[in-house]
Each structure stands twice: as C-alpha cells, then as structure tokens.
C-alpha cells in the first residue's frame, strides 16, 4: 500500500515535444536567424516597409514556381525548363497585348493554357515513355529559350497595359484612401490569422479525437501565438507603406491551395506515394504515369503564372527574362527539405526555402556585396542545407 505511482509518467512531458519541434522548425529558425543577421548588418534597412514590399515582389514568382517544382520533385523528377517557360510566356503575352492589343484577361488565360500545354508536352515523354525528366526538360529549356527570342525577335517588348501591370505591381485598394495606415491590409491580415488559427485548432482536435498524438497545449499556444503575431506584425508593416501587394494575395492563395492539395487530397497522397515507392504505388492501383504527367502539366501552368507576374513586374518582355530561375526554384525546394530521391517535401518548407534564398539575395544586395560573392554564398547555403538533411538521415 505504500507504493505510490509517480504521476509524472502519465503527464506528457514537454521536453521531447520541444526537441521534436526544434527539428521540425529548424528551417524556420534558420530563416529567422538570417533575417536578424541582415537586419543588423544592413542597419535596419531589411525590414523597412519599402524593402519588405520589394522582397515580396522579387520573390513571388520563385515561390509560385517552387510550389509546382515541389510536386515534380516529390514525384521523383525535375523540371529544368521553367525559366524558359517564364520567358516564352512573357513574350507571347507581350506580342498579343502590346502588338495585337488583345485584352489582358483573355491573354492571361490563354497563357495559362499554353503553360499547361508545354508542361503536358514534356510530361508526356517522361510519364508515358519513361524518358529521364532531366533530359526532356533540358531539351525544353533550350527549345523555349530559343522560342522566347524568336517570338520577341530579340527585342524587348513593352510597355504593357496598366491593368495588367497592376496585377503584379499593384496593391490592394484602400476604401478610406488614407494617407497613413492602409486599414484593409491590416484587417485582411487579422482575418487570415484568425482563419489559420481556427483551421489549426480544428485539425488538432480532429487528430486528438482519433487518438493520434498532438502537440502539448502550451507549446501549441506558443507556436501559434508567435506565428499569428508575426503575420499581423508583417501586415502592419506593409500597411504603413502602400498596403498588401496584389501579388502577395495571389501567392498566399496559391500556398494555401497547394498545402491543401498535398496534405488532404487523394492526388496529393498519390504524388507522395509515387515518389516514395513507385512499385508499391503501382501495386496499390495508382496510375503512376498519369500522376507524373499531372505534376508536369501543373508545373507548366504555374510557370506561366510566374511568367505573367514577372512580365508585369518588368513592364516588358525581354529575351533573357527568366533565365536562371530554374536554379533558384530548385534550390528553394531542396533548401526547403525535399529529398532528391523523391517522396519527401512539404509546401511550407519550400516557401520558407524560397524566402531564405530571397532574403539572402536582398540582404546581400543592400550590403553592396558583389554578384560574384552572392553566387558563391548562395551555392554554399544550398550545399549546407542539403548536407544537414543527409547528415540527419544517416544518423537516424
């Protein structure tokens, strides 16, 4: 009767949960460290509302393409042609809008369709003929770069109609026409945070009800408090300048949509399964070729979205538009924790990966570091990120 069972054993301990969290949020922490570093190194210039707005505009097209690239890479492939698709879509849009004066909505929709068609044309060989995606899209990269130059006849074409430019360079309208704080932007930020918290809370309850393991409540509150606070603070900063950029809204909507697709839908699960174990996926009745094909079509469409945003941002289509983007996009996906052998990778990781690259670019430019050193540093960061990933896997 003297035996007392220690009550500690029943209570979930916080420490292991924190440890697991640290691994999971390692990427986010790296981003924060990099931000703090550049904030100090640039004497506070990094997080100026003006610069923050620029940062988003500069990175939006990379993030958009990284969403598609994540699917392609998780599925076990690669797409090197996205930079050239950005170029060719910009040229087509410019020729149609500037030279033939078609209206911008029709042209934009047509461009998305062309992007999907280009993705299908490449995915067809990969998915149904088993050609290596590296080679097919390397071919595509050359073909569409050439097409970009041919369509624009080697010249820059511009300027675009104002409504089209507003897509990428515009900001959310403010009903109060206020000179100071842009209230719409702030309200929208608060709404987004509220939605986000509600969804997360529901998910937590759902898992908990089904008997799964959830994060301890204090940690859950801490995590979401910090994230929610950060989003609102971010919106507030933008609100003191010109408000939320339209592109940011498009980007966030796409991030939300792709998170949902990858986490909750059958097609998302199929993509993970095909990349994780192709044979098992086949023997489970998944049409693996069709899934692969889909990821390439999707990549084409998103590359077209990025192409339109980029063209609108420069307000002209140039022969070299988008060249080298494929490398930034692929780097973002791998820094974001995707595995080169497929099957592994998260949307949020990729978004953070893209912003790590973005902040590096932006911060180093403010500091006046030359392009030569910038490239070397970016390369080193990519290697380091992948090394950490491999190291952790080997130790496990």
């Amino acid at each position, binding site marked *: 009767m003297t035996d007392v069972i220690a009550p500690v054993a029943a209570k979930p301990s916080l420490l292991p949960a924190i440890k697991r969290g640290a691994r999971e949020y390692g990427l986010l922490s790296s981003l924060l460290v990099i931000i703090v570093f550049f904030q100090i190194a640039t004497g506070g210039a990094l997080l100026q509302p003006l610069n923050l707005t620029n940062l988003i505009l500069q990175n939006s097209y990379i993030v958009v393409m990284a969403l598609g690239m994540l699917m392609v890479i998780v599925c076990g492939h690669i797409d090197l042609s996205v930079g050239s698709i950005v170029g060719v879509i910009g040229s087509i849009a410019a020729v149609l809008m500037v030279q033939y004066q078609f209206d911008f909505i029709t042209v934009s929709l047509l461009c998305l369709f062309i992007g999907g068609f280009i993705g299908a044309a490449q995915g067809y060989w990969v998915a149904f003929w088993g050609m290596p995606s590296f080679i097919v899209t390397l071919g595509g990269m050359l073909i569409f770069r050439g097409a970009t130059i041919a369509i624009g006849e080697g010249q820059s074409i511009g300027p675009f109609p104002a409504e089209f430019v507003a897509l990428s360079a515009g900001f959310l309208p403010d009903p109060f026409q206020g000179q100071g704080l842009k209230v719409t932007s702030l309200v929208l930020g608060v709404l987004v945070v509220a939605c986000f918290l509600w969804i997360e809370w529901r998910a937590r309850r759902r898992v908990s009800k*089904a008997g*799964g393991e959830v994060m301890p409540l204090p940690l859950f509150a801490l995590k979401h408090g910090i994230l929610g606070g950060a989003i609102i603070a971010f919106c507030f900063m933008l609100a003191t300048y010109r408000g939320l950029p339209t592109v940011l809204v498009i980007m966030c909507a796409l991030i939300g949509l792709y998170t949902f697709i990858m986490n909750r839908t059958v097609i998302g699960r199929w993509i993970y399964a095909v990349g*994780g174990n192709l044979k098992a996926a086949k023997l*489970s009745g998944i049409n693996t070729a069709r899934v692969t094909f889909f990821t390439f079509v999707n990549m084409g469409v998103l590359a077209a979205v990025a192409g339109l945003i980029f063209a609108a941002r420069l307000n002209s289509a140039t022969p070299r538009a988008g060249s080298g983007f494929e490398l930034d996009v692929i780097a973002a996906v791998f820094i974001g924790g995707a595995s080169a052998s497929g099957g592994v990778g998260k949307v949020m990781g990729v978004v953070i990966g893209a912003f790590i690259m973005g902040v590096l670019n932006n911060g180093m430019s403010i500091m006046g570091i030359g392009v030569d050193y910038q490239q070397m540093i970016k390369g080193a960061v990519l290697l380091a990120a992948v090394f950490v990933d491999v190291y952790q896997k080997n130790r496990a």
Partner: protein
Amino acid sequence: MSPHLLDMRGIQKSFGPVKALTSVNLQVGKGEIHAICGENGAGKSTLMKILSGVYPTGSYAGSISFDGEVRQFSDLRDSEALGICIIHQELALVPMLSITENLFLGHEIATRGVIDWSLAHRRAKVLLEKVGLHVSPQTRVNQLGIGQQQLVEIAKALGKDVRLLILDEPTASLNEKDSERLLELMLELKAKDITSIIISHKLNEISRVADGVTVIRDGTTVDVIDCRESPLSESRVVQAMVGRELADRYPGREPNLGEKQFEVEHWSVEHPERPGVDFIRDVSFFARKGEVVGIAGLMGAGRTELAMSIFGGSFGKNIRGTVRLNGQELRVRNVREAIDNGIAYATEDRKGAGLLLGDGIGRNVSLASLKSLARRWVINETEELGVGEGYKKTLRIRSPDLRQPVERLSGGNQQKVVLAKWLFSNPEVLILDEPTRGIDVGAKYEIYGVVNQVVAKGKTVIMISSEMPELLGTCDRIYVMNEGRFVGEFPIQEASQERIMHAIMKNEVIQ
C-alpha cells in the same frame, strides 16, 4: 579419401538476433566435385559468402582451412588470391563490354596503364577454348545467351588460376542443352584437377557429377554423403533436406469449404524481357470459398509472376487465359480494376514494393483504398487514423504511435502493415506472396491466425511460399509449380514435403 582442399568447421553466423548458421561443417577433397543441398533459407548462400570473404573473419565463428592452412579472409580479394572463385546465380558481367574486357576486368593486361589489346584478345581466345565457347572475344556480352554468359564467367575464373570453383545454382536459368554442356565442362575441369562446389536443387544433376554431397538444414550440416562408391540415393537427400518436425507452429482451423470462388484457366504469360516464349505456360487452377490454397515451388518457378500477372497484369506481356470470380469472367486491365473487383496481392518484397517506408501505419493501410476514405478527392484523415488504429489493435502491430515511419518497425510488424493494407481493400481473393519471409516465429503464428480469420469469412486465400512446412501447416490444398507450369496438386491429407519435392524433380505437368 584424398586430403581436403577445403575444411570449414563449426561455422556460426548471426544477423542481429537471427541465427543464420548454427553449426556448419564442410569438407571438400582435392579434385572432387562437391554438391551442397538445402532448402531456400537453409544457409547455403551465407556459407558461401563466408568462404569468399564477403563476411570477413571476425563476423562469424568457426575456422576455415584451405590447402592445409588456416585462412582469414578480410574481403573478396583475399579469397580470390588463393584461387577461390564464386559464380553467382545473377551473373556479374558488364553487358555492354566485350568478352575480353569482361574476362580481364580489374586485371587488365596493360603496361603502365595502356592496354595491350592484341595480347588480351589472344589470351581471351585461349580461355574461351578451354570452356568450349567458340565465339569472337570481341563480342559484346549482351549478345550472348545466358548459358554462354555463364561459360564466360567460368573462363574468367580460369583466367585467375582458379583452384576452387563455386557455382551457385548454375543451371537454374539454363535450358537442358546448356545445362548438359555445363555439367560436361565441370567434369572436364575435374580432369584438369580443378575442385568445384555446386549448389543445386536438381538432384539428377548432382547425382551425375558429384563425388560428395553436404546437406544443410536450418543452418546446420545434417548429412554428408559420399557417392563415389555407391550411387546417390535421392530419397536420402530429400529426407535430410526436409526432415524437420512439424511442431505446434500453426493455429488450427476447421476447414469449411464452399463452392468454387476463383478459377484461372489456361493462363499463359510471356516474360517482358524474353518475348516470344511463354514464361507461365498454360496454368489452370481454382480455389473454393473458405479455402487456403498453397502454391509450392522453388525460387524462380514463376509463382510470383503468375500471381502478379493475374493481379491486373502487373507482370508480363501477352497475357492469355481466363479468370473467373464466382462464375463471372473477370476482365481486368490494370491493378486498380483488379483491386476494385476483389483481388488483392500482398507482395513478397515488402520494403521494395509494399510499403511507403517513410510514412506511418495509417497512410500505408489506406494507400490501396484511398477513394473509400475520401469525399470528392478530399481524404478524411480522422477516418484514416481510425482505420490505422483499428488494424493496429486487431493485428497487434507493435508501434509507439500511428505516425511512426514503418521503416522503424520490425519485419513482422511491417508485414502486418502490408496485410492490413490488403485486408482494408476488402478482397474476395487474397494472394499472399511469401507472407512470413524473414520474420520471427511469434509474428508468423499471428499472421497464420489472420489467414484463418479471412477464410472463416468465406473468402479465399492463395498462399505462395518457399517454406514447405508453412504450406503443410496452413493450407487445405497445395499446388506445386516448376518452370512456369503446375507439376503437382495435393489435398492436404496427401501432401508431404517428400511428395512435393518429388513432384518438382519429376517435373511432369498435371492436367
């Protein structure tokens, strides 16, 4: 008896908690042909890996003497330096290189790194003549047949001054003519004083060439037969190979057989890499409701290929024949349709083709039936977790939580996850391919229990296994398959390991 060239004594080897070899002795006299027999998994390959130095000294217990001296090999090169050469079942030639290049791979005939091609080709020609292969040494290896490639492997061994030649199931993939030629060559080499070890299941071949036979069972040498004085008694070998007691390792079951549920007729399939020849040849069989039907046979008999070709054509080309489920002819064009029509196939290769190793139980179980958990393409994850939790309980899958990646589970628990995936697809016919390979006795017992539950519901289980005791302990009827055909059918009362083995060796097609 001639003095021993090779003397392995008291060899023991464990992989973690699993003992692969408990006590193996092997003596091979100079200039003799020695055969090693044993069931799949008896430990033959492990023994050969120890002999060749793939498992270095220190990773096993026991001693190896070669040529009268105790030897310690730390890798393959050490054993090769003494003239021990192994020719594996899967040939190790580089298909896109020429015969000459393959023969001297790693030992190129060169001065200061520059290859003397004319000398190399001349030497290659000499070696090829020794094995009786009359083709140009400049021929690319992928243009040769399998039998000829095997001869190239032997020539390669001769080029290294081989003293002990080990052939691991050399005739498994050869036709009769090529097999004959190979055995002939072994006898010729014996005349030239080269000692050979042959690992084989084919007793007629062994009795033709072997001077001695060592039988291994469950990692132990159980019989050594000298067959120079009196001809080899096949039944003695079979007895020694299978002479294991059938202990209480199988949960009992009252058979309750219904009408024919699943019928396959005149099923023929071509191998995708060898078109034009039927790999599965005119196979017909059936299974009743509530019946466990076994398919016995040796590795490479075509059992997996038969099952996969039925499972939505996931193996093979030019598939012909009919499949009937409950009297209705099934025409499935792909795996999806097979699953939807109530056929499930649990692979023999659970890591390579069964599981998403990085995912938890829930996501693995749902993979083959995602649509049933989804409304308009959105997966109901609550329900999915519930399903996973349910199977975790009923199949007693030991895992700390549902999201623990299955790669960290033990083999037995992984196998249960594979089983859960197919149970969840709610099949009428469940095909299990080597469902207990490499798992411990306790987990095996639990899996047999699950099989019993499935047939108790009036479903059919078809069990493919290389472990004959397992088939005898769990099935109601056993088919025997060999070389792509059915060569025996036994109701369980008439089945025994000896009869199955004899059916394989006689290799006579049943009607």
